């Protein structure tokens, strides 16, 4: 299969790679960029564990092809904290509110919540629940996660 050259920015670093057209963005990030914080929980766009930001929008990287990200700015979980490692407000709130247990769904939730709060800095409880319903968690019953996003919103 012929390869296609793509140029994009991943967590602020410019990259150019030749990829198979069928390579998903998730596999590209995990295998070519070694950014394994993007997790694959279902490969069909339901669980949200693979959520990343593409030009600021939260997308499921298992449903996007790497070639579709050509020219885009991609941010993964590895690019959410400050360069010095300081946790972002959302990340810090997840820790404070016990918003994670096994951690597998966590990158997707953090990325989704980051985008949600950027678009809607003061969400109602219902908006939060609906806004995060596209990410699945088996450990927390969503209680700690919702508390964390609420706290991050309050922290502004």
């Amino acid at each position, binding site marked *: 299969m012929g390869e296609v050259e793509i140029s994009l920015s991943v967590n602020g670093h410019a990259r150019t790679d030749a990829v*198979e057209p069928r390579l998903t963005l998730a596999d590209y990030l*995990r295998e070519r960029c*070694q*950014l*394994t*914080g*993007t*997790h*694959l*929980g*279902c*490969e*069909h766009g*339901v*669980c949200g*564990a693979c959520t990343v930001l593409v030009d600021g929008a939260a997308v499921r990287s298992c449903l996007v092809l790497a070639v579709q990200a050509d020219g885009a700015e991609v941010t*993964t*979980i*590895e690019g*959410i*904290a400050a360069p010095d*490692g300081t*946790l972002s407000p959302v*990340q810090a709130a*997840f*820790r*404070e509110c*016990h918003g*994670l*247990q*096994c*951690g*597998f*769904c*966590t*990158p997707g939730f*953090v990325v989704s919540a980051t985008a949600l709060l950027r678009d809607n800095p003061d969400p109602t409880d219902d908006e*939060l*629940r*609906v806004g*995060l*319903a*596209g*990410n*699945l*968690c*088996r*450990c*927390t*019953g*969503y*209680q*700690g*996660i*919702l508390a964390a996003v609420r706290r991050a919103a309050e922290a502004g």
Partner: protein
Amino acid sequence: MSVMGTRVQRREDPAFLTGANRYTADLDEPLLAGALHVHFVRSTIAHARITEVDVSEAAAASGVVAVYTAADTVAADDLDPFPVAIPGMIPDALARPWIAGEVVRFVGEVVAAVVAETREAAQDAAELVVVDYEPLEAVVDPVEAARDELLLFPDHGTNTALEVPFGHSGDALFEGCEVVVDRTVVNQRLAVCPLEPRAMAVTWHDGRLVVFMSTQAPHGVRNRLAGIYGLEPEQVRVVAPAVGGGFGAKINVQADEGLLPWIARRLGRPVRWAETRGESMVSMPHGRGQVLRVEIGGGRDGTVGAYRLTVLQDAGAYPSMGAFLPFMTRTMAPGTYAFPKVECNVKAVMTNTTPVEAYRGAGRPEATAAVERALDLFAAEIGMDPVEVRRKNLIAADAFPYTTPTGAVYDVGDYAGALDAALEAAGYDELRAEQRARREAGERLQLGIGVSLYVEITAGPAGNQGEYAKVTLHRDGSVAVYTGSSAHGQGHATSWAMLAHELTGIPMERIEVIAGDTDRVPEGHGTFGSRSLQLGGSAVWTATEQVVEKARQVAAELLEAAPADVVLDTDRAAFHVAGSPSVVKTWAEVGAAGDIAGPIGEAPTGQPIEAALTFTADNATFPFGAHVAVVEVDTETGRVELRRIVTCDDAGRILNPMIVEGQRHGGIAQGVAQALYEEVRYDADGNPLTANLADYAFVSAAELPAFELVPLETPTPVNPLGAKGIGESGAIGATPAVQSAVVDALAPHGVTHLDMPLTPERVWRAMTTV
């Protein structure tokens, strides 16, 4: 200052929050360099004779190194048959083949293994494997399977995998009862669905087998693989990297997993495998799957005289741990009630479905759901409030230790206390008043209130295998805690550091916790059955106590004092002579001196001060609680909305309330999900209808209210921490509470029972047909 009972934040979290932690599929270990990728070809038919497997095209495909079928595994002189889960209990004739060769018995069974240079090449080649099936009639329903009209293993002569009759006294059991209710209820099959599916990577290195695996029990995996491959346990190293949830489905070694070392050895290269979700939904063991007949008899005053539970377990196509779940159900059959007479008989049958194993609660949710439904049915029959009926039959708080008719010895409990606390927090009387008002007004949204009590068994059965810990004091005064409890989200690293800090005063950041690598931790059992804090934590606690005692003797030598006069000030993390706090010896000074005192009463060794032991409790523990659920049922559409869930869960003394609340939250969500949403379904031919997360009704944030948690701490006497398990409580108590609430809302329609999940269609049909 004590850290016990405080909300210490998890040390694990920063790595998870930044994506730095590596799960099995993420590993970039040098040992795995050049690894091949395995892709399993799985049966698409539930029951069929295999007439031909043609792998020629697949084997010739680009990047493919090997394709294995049953012909290869059967002919191999370096591979024994895959052993049954519990030899001696399950006949060898029911053992699962490594790869199906003659007959497939469920959709998802392995029919070939493709090994290639890349994952994509393996997947592509798998499409080229041609399997000819001659379909056989499938049996999916365990009740039908029990009739033995269609057999999965004709040579075995029956679909029954395991049956233990404990005695059945027929109608005589209910002699003297004014009222007897007899009903069959279903505890449906569920998909376990940890967010990380199964994954494993294997290599042979310097004559040893090295395994990286998403598992709850690395030592159990080590021992099982050692047995399969004729190795000593020391010749096998199992590493559990970050593990993305388990919930019971990652305790055992499955046939596909167990075959990977054989493939790696045959090809002389490391191999990797990570299942997709679609694969996982049919090949990861399922949970629950019981049909329960409840018979309950008693007086019109609400006193129960006798209870009989008859359990039919759907074990799936190959009986494994699931066949033993009914024994847990039997142990907990009477629940929180002082029924004078209890009988429980159990049987496990095979069906053409994915094998069943443990899922959060594993046999106890089924027992609780059954007895709670039985009490509701009994209450409805005699026209008494279900709470009142429960009160009349609860085991009294002064009756512990309490031996049940099914042989459990409950350690300690206060069931009425839990019930009172939950009812008060819920505002039970006000809820009933609101319910009456809505009924009288004929409102479209009717209120339902459900109450459940549960008691379960954790770290059981009695005489359990215990858990290992080693605590080592380094020369710089830092501490290493080695634990056999390997976590997958439970926060052991934080909790174990809290325990060691509590006894030593050494700052938690100076306490390293090491787990999940059988080379670094020589013994262990793992994290399942809500056992970790009470066994693994007690082991850490006891080993730390021994280290403190040894260190006190060393400090005494350094202080030139009698050991009996030396005290440890944990606030200052230093030893001094009692009454002379100004002259101290720090942990670093004691650690630098080393074990100059040697084991207590023995000669000096010069080794680091350390203690290693396995903590074993004399009894299991029996956490308990009460849940109140409030639902709104839309009488026009059958839609159910959970408005409130109030739970009082007692896990004994609490070490870290934040972690305990997290465990309760997760369990409650899964319990609610079982009541209202989740079910693994098959069509009559055994085709799975819920084989991805779009079709399986995995609960999301949008369906759940804020949970209302009521605290209660009744310490157990069976371990030094006073701790009981909390991991499964929510999933045990919430399900029957929510189920009862929906049935309660439908009471005016004459409904006394509905099976789960309580989908809008099921609820609507009940309202329109009863």
